[in-house]
């Protein structure tokens, strides 16, 4: 194992770890295609697809991008971006979901 960490930001992941993550991502991709063809009722089909996508995104961010080994500040930046994204979507939906008429040209 060559996972020696002599200084933060310079963690060397082992080839086995990287291949394992790549394999897991491919398995999850196949899983999400299989799940999408199952007759799952309305809200839960989107929820299951997003849940699998979030697991895949976590694996990429944590191990391929190295956030798991890195200083936590980069993780805070990433989570901060997601918080502001959710804020943007929420506030917009508060408008668009409660209109009496959708603007016709849209």
């Amino acid at each position: 194992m060559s996972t020696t960490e002599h200084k933060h930001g310079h963690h060397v992941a082992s080839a086995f770890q990287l291949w394992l993550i790549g394999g897991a991502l491919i398995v999850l991709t196949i899983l999400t295609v299989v799940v999408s063809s199952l007759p799952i009722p309305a809200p839960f089909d989107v929820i299951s697809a997003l849940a699998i996508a979030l697991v895949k995104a976590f694996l990429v961010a944590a191990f391929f991008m190295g956030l798991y080994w890195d200083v936590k500040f980069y993780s805070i930046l990433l989570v901060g971006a997601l918080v502001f994204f959710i804020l943007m979507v929420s506030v917009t939906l508060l408008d668009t979901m409660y209109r009496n008429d959708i603007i016709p040209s849209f």
Partner: protein
Amino acid sequence: MANHSASQPAHVQHHFVDSDQQFDSAKLGMWVFLVNEILFFGGLFCAYIIFRVWYPELFTQAALELNKVWGGVNTIVLIGSSLTVAMAIRSAQRNELKGLRINLMITIALAFVFLVIKYFEYEHKLHLGIAPGSFWNPTPEVLAVLDHPKANIFFSIYYVMTGIHGLHVIIGIGLMIWLYIRAGKGHFSSEYYTPVEITGLYWHLVDLIWIFLFPLLYLIE
């Protein structure tokens, strides 16, 4: 430490204290850019969410025009390229310059495979008149399956999101070629591989965006 610039390796620019500080500054800069990218694509995902809430039946119908198999293959191609980028960074960290070049070469090849598949997907759709916005001019066969007054809006969202993602892939290829050439000139080593590291971060983000685009566009029925 009075004259530290003289004792630093050649790649350290004079305004940095040492190699590590230079590396961390570059990496922080890239992460701030990635935050910006997430919010940029976030606006597009926001449009997707609004229109899906307004017209849920449109999305399930229109997704039938997208080819799940090719979308899935492209997902696996991008995941493979993310793996080879991670391996390229690992090679650089271990001073294996040949491994670095081989991994960059495979990454470039996979990125081209992604674009070729995307080209055939676009070409097939445009041939059927499945075009965005006011260019929407579908054949009767398409209309038989997808007769929705807002169908063009779904494909506006589809073309803009996958198109801008594709543009990121093209930029990524350019960056990888630049890295490949610099690696050939012996610019990188275990002491200095900052451009490989931060280009890798960018490439992983391009993969991350696709991880969400694939189920949200192709896998709804």
